Structure formats: C-alpha cells, structure tokens
C-alpha cells in the first residue's frame, strides 16, 4: 500500500505536551518536513526557548540546546560561529523573542547572522498561564490585563517582522499563519526558504507564525482559529516584509 501521510523522520515519535487545539504541533511538523526534505537532520542544531516550546528539545530528532529565556539568538550565534557548516535554527515564542529577548533578536538580525528563527506568535504567555505578551492585542484580556490591554497603561503590541525588516542584515522576514490549509502550505514554503537562505549563506531569516492558544484565550480550538483570522491577521498582516540580498 502506498504511504500518503506519515510522521516526519526528524519529529520524535512521542506524545507532545501541548494543549488540545494548540497549533505548535503543526509548526513543529512543518519544520521537520523541511529538515527531512532537505536531508539535513544530521547537520542541524536546534535551539529552543523558555515558554510553551521549552520541551521542544525532546521533539526534534536533531541535536538540541535549551537556551535561557530570550537568549536563543545569542546561543544560536555561538553555535553557528563555532560550526559554520551546520544548520542552526531557533524556535521561540512571543514573550521569549519580543520581550526578554528583544536585544538578542535585533542584534542577531542586524549582524545578518546566518540562522533561521521560527517565531511563534500567539499573543500571550502560554506556559505561565496566560499573561500579557509584547504581542497581546489592544483590548485583549489576559491574567495581567484583566480589563483588556490598555495601550495607555501597557503600551502597544510589537510588530516584529515590520520592525526587523528595516535592518540591513535581514534576508527574509515573513509572517505566515497556520489557520487554514492554504496558509499552512504558505507557512511551509516560507520555512523552506529560510533554511535554503541559510544553506546559501544569505543572512538572517525569520518566519513569524501566527498561532493559537485555545487554553489561555478561553476559546474552543475552532473559535481560536476564528479569532486568529478575525483579530490577529488584521493587526498582524500576513506577507513578506523583507526578501533581499544582504550585501555584507
């Protein structure tokens, strides 16, 4: 019988800890499909963050490093500089990348560090139980914005791809979503492009993936997808924000 669908080889055959309806699983799968298709599992080192994907080192079958909160781009820089012929990616959430790790993110990007950053934006701190993230939308309720995020008090959300696209070292900054089959296919293409950029030594590539958090949003998985489409995409428009040749 012909096999039409199977688990990617580089995705560990174990039960993931993510909540029902969470889209981390899809994003893990897309990264692994790309690693498999490019045949680079044995030459890849992944760096995981602190946050919901903190246990990702158990899920990716390539060599893995667990970084301190927000420091994944600096850790990945150390790996890449020491082993320039290896593929290096980080897998980070919004709190990790756009709050505590803003400095490391911006500087890895502006150096044109030849790494891939997978940035999962679900507008909330999931692992700690639903606090305001740097990407939490105005009016969004979280446990630390119980009356909705008030920009007068808590400031505005960060649009990471738009911000990073101004930097000379960024080869690719693209925002995708995993709310529908066409968008998922688009997301995979972006991730593939990011890894190919690294192979071709083109510089820093970031793929921002709009993702859901049914548990901490207090929504069913289906309603969570609807929120992503109705509220997140209008604030965080999908698209390519940088796709250029970095002139080192």
């Amino acid at each position, binding site marked *: 019988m012909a096999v039409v669908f199977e688990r990617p080889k580089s995705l560990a055959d174990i039960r993931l800890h993510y909540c029902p309806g969470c889209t981390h699983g899809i994003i893990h799968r897309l990264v692994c499909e790309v690693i498999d298709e490019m045949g680079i*599992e*044995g*030459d*890849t*080192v992944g*760096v995981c963050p602190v946050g919901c994907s*903190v*246990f990702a*080192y*158990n899920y*990716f*079958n*390539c*060599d*893995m*490093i*667990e*970084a*301190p909160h927000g*420091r994944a781009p*600096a*850790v*990945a*820089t*150390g*790996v*890449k*500089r*020491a*082993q320039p012929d*290896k593929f290096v990616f980080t897998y980070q959430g919004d709190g990790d990348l756009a709050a505590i790790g803003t*400095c*490391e993110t*911006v*500087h890895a990007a502006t150096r044109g560090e030849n790494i891939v950053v997978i940035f999962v934006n679900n507008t909330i701190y999931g692992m700690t139980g639903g606090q305001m993230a740097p990407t939490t939308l105005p009016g969004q309720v979280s446990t630390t914005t119980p009356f909705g995020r008030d920009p007068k008090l808590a400031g505005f959300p960060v649009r990471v791809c738009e911000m990073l696209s101004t930097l000379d070292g960024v080869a690719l900054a693209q925002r995708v979503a995993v709310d529908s089959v066409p968008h998922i296919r688009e997301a995979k293409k972006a991730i593939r492009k990011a890894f190919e950029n690294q192979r071709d030594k083109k510089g820093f590539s970031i793929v921002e993936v709009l993702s859901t958090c049914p548990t901490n949003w207090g929504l069913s998985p289906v309603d969570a997808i609807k929120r992503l489409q109705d509220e997140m995409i209008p604030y965080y428009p999908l698209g390519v924000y940088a796709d250029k040749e970095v002139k080192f």
Partner: protein
Amino acid sequence: MEKKLMKGNEALAEAAIRCGCKCFFGYPITPQTELSEYMAKRMNASGGVFLQAESEIAAINMVLGAASTGVRAMTSSSSPGISLKSEGISYIAGSDLPCVIINVQRGGPGLGGIQPSQADYWQATKGLGHGDFHVLVFAPSSVQEVVDMVSYAFDMADKYRMPAMLLSDGLLGQMMEPVVFPEQKSEAIEKPWAANGHKNERKHNIINSLYIEATDLENTVVERYKKYDEIKATLPDAETYMTDDAEYIITAYGATARVCKSAVNLARAEGIKAGLIRPKTLWPFPSEIIKNATENAKAILCVEMSTGQMVDDVKLAVECKKNVEFFGRTGGVIPTPAEVLAQIKKLGGIE
C-alpha cells in the same frame, strides 16, 4: 624559550589562543578591554572566532552555544559585567558545559570604580548565579601565572565539564611583566556529548538544564556534587612563603599577595617571623593547606582589597581555633607593604 614583555590582559588573550580557545565573545568594559581588543586583532587570523556581542548577557550565551558544540570558548569582563553574565553561568553549570570566564575585577558595588579590587570573591566562590553549583576559580598573582592558569583552567573545565573562572584584577590586567609562553600540549579531549550535528550516526544530543520532575533535578544535582567532592579532594592549591617557622601568617591572593610578600620580607628584615599563604585556587579553597601551614602560628592576618570576604573561608579552614584578623583596603585602593607590616606588628603587639 623567549621572554616577552606583555600587559596582563594581552598576555591572557595570547595564552588563551595558544591553548586552543576557538571562540571569544566579549563586550567592552574597563579594565579588561585590552583583552577583547587583542582577541579582535589575533583571533580571526589564527582561525578562531572573535565577536563583539551586543551585551554581556549575549556574550555569555554565545559562549554557551559555542561550548555546546564542543569547542573551547571564553568570555571576559569586569565586575558589573560579570553580574550580568551570572544567569548564563548558572545555565552553563546546569548544562555541564566547559568554558572559561575572565573577571578583571574593579571596585563595586554598582558602577563602583575602575581601579583594582577583590570585592567579587563572594560572587565568584559562592554566588555566580542561582541554584546549587560551583565554578572552578583560579587566582593568578603575576602575568606569568595568568598565562599558565588560562591553559590549566581550560584543561580542568574540559575534564570536569564545568565553567572555570580566572579571578584577575585591574592591577594584574594593566601591568606589564616578562612572560614565557610554554609549549602547547594539545589536550583536545573527546566530547561525545556535544551538540554539533549527529550525522545520522547517533541519537540526538541534548544540552539542557531543565528537569521538571523534582527528584530528577535532585538526582542530577547530587551527581554533580560528587564531581565537586572529587575536585575538592584533588585540586586545591596554594603557595606558601616562609611559613615553616612563622609566628604570624598572612593569607592573601592575587595582586594583594604580592604586596603581602613584600611586607613579609620587611618583617623578616626586622626579625619578625612572618609568612604568607597565597591561595591559587579559591574554589576549591585550599583549607587543608592553610590549616596545616598555620598549625604553629600565633595568629593569622587575612589581607584583601575588599572589606573582608575570603577571611570567612580562612576562619573555617582553621576551624576558628586560631586568631584570624583582617586588614583590607577597598574601592580600588591598593594596600602598601608598610601598611601590612604595621598590621603584622599590631597582631603581635610588637612596638
């Protein structure tokens, strides 16, 4: 072998390169900056990596990344910068990674000053980050010893898979002395644990300090402490100077020990039986050496460029059975031999 006149910070950098340090990540701060500048000039040409990080925090995390792949990696800073690195140092220790960290100490707390100090003793030996762990701490007192200890620090860090710190200070960093660079033994040891791509030849390696089950974490920490016990039994080291017949013994490390050696010589010239014990390892602390060498002494004087930090460990070493007094200058002030001599006389009630 050829003798070269070199500044402490530059000699340290050269020695690190010669003993196989492949990656250096730094951030500018006085009084260690020459070290980074030297690395910037030499490292890339010698086939290694120099990168100026965006912060001290990024620098230590770059060390974490490079060390994870099995190469020798190093960072350097001065006191306020080391505080920033302490998060990363804790993760490195918790992930059982080897690396070398240089602290060219300056006065504190806060921004403090830029003159030599030894006020980071507690931080280095007891509190380089959160959690149960130790870092090997070596204390050179001459530029030559800086050179020799860098190579030893890398070897011990690799052997025990843990961070090692060279606790230097602004005086050692800035002064020039003749040095000889020893022939390098290449001690590249196998690092089968490294995360550098499994080449489809082994299961994936994971570099990690997270243990979500309390008993798993406890077991890991307890295992690590068995390693620390082995280190405490084998690595403690100290120089003793004129201690055999000494009635008054000074304990001092680093640059301060040089001042104290002069004070001992002054005392001896006046017929006072003084001696010096100079710890070369601060963790593990050479307690046995101090206990044995002070057995017949009347009193001990601990001298530091701080308000008194190592003195606690000296009291523990002699089990509080001896009179241990303290003399220190702090804030970047270097004690003089005459001041120390006066303290020895005070200790002995000598006019």
